[in-house]
């Protein structure tokens, strides 16, 4: 044991001297490369993780909340069109602990027509479902009301007012030209042809932009207005449920089932972003590839530095062995050096990440098609990258030093 301790302290002594008396330029350059590799791994994967998180957050905040209840099948197995006795159902839902609010919506297919100069020459139309909301209820399950970029949110009493998502209005940086009214503004009049033949004129009261295209492709009127269009009452096409997220959605779904919602179709938010799930899986693959590249860059750099250092000191290593130094001490001293390069690179990387890049991206988030994406780091991924880099550095330090240390002393000294 004492011998092992003595070997470690001897290796530490040599390592300390390599660092303090070795080339400062090599030290700085190697640490810079290790830092860049660490940043490459964590910034890119942080942005991709952040983009994925952003999709999840925005889906819950602006699109479908946590859970969606839709009509199920009737006793004959036919698809129901509406959830009946919605007021009673909502009371039952909100009595479940952990459920914050429930908001019902009607949805009705329609063609929306917009004639900007009222001459009929430039009429634009889109075919898209119009949804209804109870504005007071809706405020508790979605954040659309805080994302208005023009005009105002709906009020319960509004009947001839409508609000549009950015992508439908076609302004405010909208990207999806095909489903857009190409520049409808607050105060403009639009005509809605519902599938049941009812035609209504509405004044655009507000335009919202959450930055999340799926959420920004909606058209809302009030619940009262839609009930008059459809000539029904106390029903809903869907109910959005907001939970306190103390448990996974599956837990609340089972509670809803226990509360008697057995015939309805109940799904968590994740079921509504099928297209995006594919994207997140792709992001995951890209992250792993970048992690591998980053590790290879840092590993190869450290390997080259240690390779050059040991090759240049071949004679010196031979002399140390001639004096009686064990191979293990020589190897350990260089492994410590490689570990030190990586550790300093990681520390510098963490400092830059936390003090420079994260604040910068928080102030200037990247604009992705799925919304604004800041830079966030996942602690588990951060730890994985740190541990991986340190392991790679140990290997990168070991191989070249082992190669030289096992050489014949005579060859090492005299070539």
């Amino acid at each position: 044991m004492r011998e092992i301790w003595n070997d470690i302290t001897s290796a530490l002594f040599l390592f300390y001297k390599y660092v303090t008396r070795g080339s400062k330029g090599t030290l700085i350059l190697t640490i810079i490369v290790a830092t860049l590799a660490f940043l490459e791994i964590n910034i890119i994967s942080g942005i991709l993780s952040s983009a994925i998180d952003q999709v999840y957050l925005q889906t819950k905040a602006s699109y479908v909340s946590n859970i969606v209840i839709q009509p199920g099948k009737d006793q004959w197995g036919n698809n129901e069109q509406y959830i009946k006795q919605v007021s009673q159902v909502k009371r039952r839902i909100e009595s479940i602990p952990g459920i914050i609010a429930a908001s019902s919506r009607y949805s009705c297919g329609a063609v929306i027509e917009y004639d900007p100069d009222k001459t009929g020459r430039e009429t634009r139309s889109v075919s898209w479902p119009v949804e209804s909301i109870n504005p007071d209820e809706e405020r508790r399950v979605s954040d659309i009301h805080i994302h208005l970029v023009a005009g105002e949110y709906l009020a319960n009493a509004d009947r001839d007012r409508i609000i549009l998502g950015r992508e439908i209005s076609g302004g405010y940086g909208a990207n999806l030209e095909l489903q857009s009214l190409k520049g409808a503004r607050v105060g403009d009049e639009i005509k809605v042809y519902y599938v049941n033949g009812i035609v209504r004129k509405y004044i655009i009261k507000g335009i919202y932009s959450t930055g999340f295209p799926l959420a920004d492709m909606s058209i809302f009127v009030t619940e009262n207005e839609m009930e008059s269009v459809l000539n029904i009452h106390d029903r809903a096409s869907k109910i959005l449920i907001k939970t306190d997220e103390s448990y996974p959605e599956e837990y609340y779904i089972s509670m809803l089932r226990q509360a008697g919602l057995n015939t309805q179709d109940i799904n968590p938010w994740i079921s509504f972003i099928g297209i995006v799930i594919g994207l997140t899986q792709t992001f995951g693959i890209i992250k792993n590839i970048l992690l591998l590249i980053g590790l290879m860059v840092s590993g190869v750099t450290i390997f080259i530095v240690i390779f050059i250092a040991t090759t240049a000191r071949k004679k010196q290593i031979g002399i140390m062995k001639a004096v009686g130094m064990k191979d293990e001490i020589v190897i350990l001293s260089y492994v410590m050096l490689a570990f030190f390069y990586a550790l300093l690179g990681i520390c510098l990387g963490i400092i830059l990440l936390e003090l420079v890049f994260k604040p910068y991206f928080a102030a200037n988030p990247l604009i992705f098609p799925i919304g604004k994406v800041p830079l966030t780091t996942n602690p588990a991924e951060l730890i994985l990258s740190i541990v991986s880099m340190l392991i790679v550095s140990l290997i990168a330090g070991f191989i070249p030093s082992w190669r030289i240390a096992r050489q014949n002393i005579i060859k090492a000294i005299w070539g």
Partner: protein
Amino acid sequence: MINVKNLNKIYPGHIPVHALKDVSFDIPRGQFVAIMGPSGSGKSTLLHQLGLLDEPTSGQIFLDSIDVSKLSDRKRAAFRLRHLGYVFQEYALIPELNAIENVFLPLMLLGMKRREYIRVAGELMSHVGLAERLNHLVSELSGGEQQRVAIARALVNNSRILLADEPCANLDTENKGIVLKLLRKLCNEMGQTILMVTHEPEQREFADRVLWLRDGRLEKEELIDKESQKNALLNIYRTDISSDPDFLK
């Protein structure tokens, strides 16, 4: 002290080189032996075998009655560390370490306490006349000073056998004198057994005995009388060492 029996060393290759052929000799404790011979005669090869830096093809080497010719690599390293001192032709010091660190390195490897190895190394540095240069980096020392540091390092483990491979080859006349006189002094005053490879004939007069090698064989032996030694100390490589008060006190 040193017994060499029928030592052979063959370097394998397309054309194997028989570098040492049945070399046998004994060296008693405290003798200063010069190994001489023309280039390629096997001088350095012999020293490498005695210094356990290489393994002989056949034959035996006994150092203090221990057969060291068949030791494992690990045991050879431990033996070198504890019992041998080696001075190389070039100033074989570690550039990242200063003078005293180079000297105490073997003691550190032996597990001696820090305070103790600094004291021992400091004393040896004084002994070789470098008390004022303890903390100088290798690059700040002259060739002669570096070789004296190397000698101090070779002695620091209290080794009885000092092996020196052309220790003066790269030194100027003054430093040659200093190093050779130091080796002679170590032999006289500390009872050090010294084997020194040299190709400069006048240097053999610092030794007690000369082993002449030719084509890998021990060709002849020569004893140096005390008068020649005294003459060498006084007249060969005359040096002005008055500026170095500790040296050869």
